[in-house]
């Protein structure tokens, strides 16, 4: 009741002293304190509860949020309200009008500004007492020591390479020093569906362990695009992949530039008309070239809430955390599936075993590279291959490319002999992978 009296009395006060009263009044945490003061039936023995737990959460823990987009906005809100008071956030993007249907910390007047900066400022204004430190830039630009300062990392990313990178970075950190196991809570959504998972580097399966679960991006065979288009998508791909570089030479296609989309749309429409294919639209053109994934506020809310709920449980031990994967599907009623995703022994990031590839004796290096690109468990697109004598095939830099290109037509067995394997690196793969060959 004291709080209510206090509220009544403060009503006439100036805003600043009202805020002081509010911040001094720890009874405001009544709801969350119930689960931080009291043990539940499933709570771990390690749970202390009470002041020590609250002090760690509110005054000592430091948490990093990667991404200030659809999930990131929600994550920042939830962490701030849950009592994490030292929050850091990284995002390299600026605000676009198409973000506003879900990224609720942004307004029309913010379009063009840094997501990380605007989000941090908004949360600090709305939830006084919370410190949010923004970083406008790429996660790869920070040294590994930057990541060591955090107790937990929560990732709400739409980029797979970025996820692979932070996962590999945290796993490597834990491999080098087992004191440095920083939990990674990762979320992702698409339409009415999404997933949340907890990764304890080296202890549980990691992001790379499940890389083969990803549906590879729809790739249309180049011969279909060039010769036998059937769908409007084929005409759009023709415009962006073949026509754009032919006409615009070195000018890079910017899929965020409406004039560029307009040009592709016009080209694709003309080609579609020529082949009597129907259905090329502006929105479809944009969707295909930007690989747009439908996104709504409600799904992001569910997944971000789940991620932050896990972060709270990890930070306070007030309840067991997710072990280790939850899927949410809202298309057909409400469905969740919670399970333990197991470690993959040959995971290039956290597994100990090396990968093998079955190859034919009549295979050229080019054929072998094609099969590597098709592998679900690698998810690579422009691999560089090396062996004991150096570069086997590198797509760049140009001089190495020229020097190694002749190898593409040579037989694998002639290049490597019976015993030797290859080392593969790729821009989208965070580590290099040793692959031993098995001639069949």
């Amino acid at each position, binding site marked *: 009741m004291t709080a209510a009296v*206090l*509220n009544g009395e403060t*009503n006439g006060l100036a805003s600043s002293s*009202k805020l002081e009263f*509010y911040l001094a009044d720890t009874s*405001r945490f009544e*709801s*969350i304190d*119930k689960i931080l003061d*009291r043990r539940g*039936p*499933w709570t771990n023995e390690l749970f202390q509860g009470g002041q020590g737990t609250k002090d760690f959460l509110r005054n000592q823990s430091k948490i990093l949020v990667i991404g200030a987009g659809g999930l990131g906005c*929600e994550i920042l*809100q939830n962490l701030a*309200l849950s009592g994490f008071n030292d929050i850091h956030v990284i995002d390299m993007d600026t605000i676009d*009008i*198409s973000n*506003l*249907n*879900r990224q*609720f910390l942004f307004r*029309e007047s913010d379009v063009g500004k840094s997501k990380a900066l605007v989000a941090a400022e908004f949360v600090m204004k709305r*939830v*006084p007492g919370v410190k949010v430190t923004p970083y406008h830039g790429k996660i790869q630009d920070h040294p590994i020591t930057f990541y060591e300062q955090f107790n937990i990392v929560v990732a709400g990313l739409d980029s797979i390479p970025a996820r692979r990178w932070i996962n590999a970075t945290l796993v490597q950190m834990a491999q080098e020093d087992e004191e440095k196991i920083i939990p990674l809570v990762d979320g992702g959504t698409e*339409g*009415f569906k999404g997933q949340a998972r907890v990764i304890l580097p080296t202890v549980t399966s990691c992001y790379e362990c499940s890389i083969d679960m990803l549906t590879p991006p729809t790739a249309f065979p180049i011969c279909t695009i060039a010769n*036998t288009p*059937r769908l409007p998508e084929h005409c759009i791909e023709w415009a962006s992949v073949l026509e754009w570089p032919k006409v615009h030479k070195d000018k890079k296609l910017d899929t965020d530039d409406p004039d560029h989309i307009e040009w592709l*749309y*016009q080209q694709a429409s003309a080609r579609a*008309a020529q082949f*009597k*294919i*129907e*259905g090329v639209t*502006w*929105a*479809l053109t944009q*969707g295909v070239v930007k690989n*747009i*994934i*439908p*996104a*709504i*506020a*409600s799904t992001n*809310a*569910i997944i971000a*809430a*789940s991620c932050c*709920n896990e972060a*709270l449980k990890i930070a306070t031990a007030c*309840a067991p955390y*997710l072990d280790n994967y939850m899927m949410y599907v*809202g298309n057909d*009623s*409400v*469905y*969740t599936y*919670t399970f333990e995703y197991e470690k993959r022994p040959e995971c290039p990031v956290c597994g100990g075993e090396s990968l093998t590839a079955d190859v034919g004796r009549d295979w050229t290096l080019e054929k072998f590279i094609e099969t590597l690109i098709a592998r679900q468990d690698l998810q690579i697109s422009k691999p560089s291959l090396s062996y004991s004598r150096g570069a086997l095939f590198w797509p760049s830099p140009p001089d190495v490319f020229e020097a190694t290109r002749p190898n593409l037509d040579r037989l694998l067995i002639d290049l490597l002999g019976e015993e030797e394997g290859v080392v593969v690196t790729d821009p989208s793969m965070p580590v290099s992978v040793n692959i031993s060959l098995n001639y069949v």
Partner: protein
Amino acid sequence: MDDSIDVTQATTGTTEIPSYRPDAKTRRYDRQLRLWASAGQRSLESARVLLVGSDATGCQALKNLVLPGISQFTILSPNLTTSQDVATNFFLHPDSVGFPIAEESVKYLKELNPAVEGSSRVEDPASLVSTNADFFTAFTLIIASNIEPSLELQIADLLWEASLTVGGPEIPLIAIRNSGFVGRVEIQLREHSVVDTHPDTTHTLRLDAPFPSLQQHARSLDLSSMDSMEHSHVPWVVLLVRAASLWKESHGGNLPETSEEKLAFKDLLRKDKVKGDEENYEEALAQAYRVWNPSEVPWEVRQLLDDESVMNISSSSKNLQLLLHTLSQYIVAPPHLPPTSPSLPDMHSSTTSYVQLQNLYKKEYQSDLARFKTLLAEILLRIGLEEGTVSDEEIESFVKNVGGVGIIKGRSLRESKEGRGLLATEIDGFDESDLSATCFAMHLALLASERFFVAHRRWPGTKARDDMAQDNREVEEIVKGVLGGKIQGAEIPDVFVESIAEVTRGGFGTLPTTAAFLGGVVAQEAIKLVTNQYTPLDNTVVINLVKSESAKFKF
């Protein structure tokens, strides 16, 4: 604002290509239009949503509805803002303390989307229910977030009664209850139509029963005279229609039935291959199972055709019931099959063969659509409705996607809560090793806590720490009463004791993360209900955020 122009309406070959560069509104909503398209957006933009209660969970749900652009929302609550409210609810500020919470939350929620209207009503909902029922029935959908159990039932009763009168408003109620890590969402709806469930596929390829032009096209091909390029680009649909037709000729008009016959069918198909790696043949072999999947009306839809409300239509029937009734009449005539869909999946083929095949389907669709429309017009005339009652857009979307509709018949919240629905069945079938056991036990813990509240005017777990054990025991006794001795033994199973303890531990306080999770679930369901797209929950889901799991029930 359509995310794709319908292929049958798109104009091709025009020299002037019109630009459809999207306007600001379309750009703002782009990522959601790719899910529910302009039809769904229109429904959303005419939806009026009432929130009764003003806690963080309710406001989170509203946030997720204001952002995609509902027409209007109202918050009804007589309470003044406390610092406890501010600490859990992002749509309040310390400055709000002492002011009406409905007004304060509306102010912060409205910022999210300038296109959405918001208003507050600072009044006691209980008295409003008895004095002004019209206030409630003016909304499209009502969310009751953690309000007193008796008030929740009063509102539920009001809406249920209103929906029983012919032509009365059918307003779904979404009721939320949460305590700590435990949350529950219940939906009361009398009857709900789903016009597009968004099934994985909408193709009706008619491989088993090809329409005449398709059959003729497939049989007219002279595979043996084709060059290898042409041969390897015949679409698999054509290959299968042809093979099925040939098979029928030599098997007394029947398609392959036994597994031996199915293998023989595939061998027959394989015989026509001229080269080992013809992709179109590989696709045909992989898709061969479609030949023995009959093209008839899908089972779920057939059930709907037999429903009373579809068989006996009147001028007050819903459009979906009128369309389904028309479908039931449509299939009376041979070939007794649903209308052909104009959509065709992509397949290995030359452009000309593909476009030619697509045109066959489109032509058939157009003629089926015309027959369907004539039939519908006759039916409308017979029951005294105007021809335009069902819009062309609705008819076309139904005909294109006959398998993607549904009707859900719900139960009143009172019936579910009082255990007159399927609760008894769930109790009888209870098994502690089921994945849903904990969530089921949590539902009973919440149900019992509501009865506890009615008796004590406070929630379990809201006194000092020492009283938790006493509250637990009392809730356990209520749960025992609900179970009615159906679960053997003097003691209730551990999972009930544990679930009650976890619910009491939360003391019916709102955790920000639980609020955000439930707010997301509620908004997804609200969107599905308002747009009549995707299948909504019927009728209860329990979310256990200790174990990050959920289970749904129909009580």
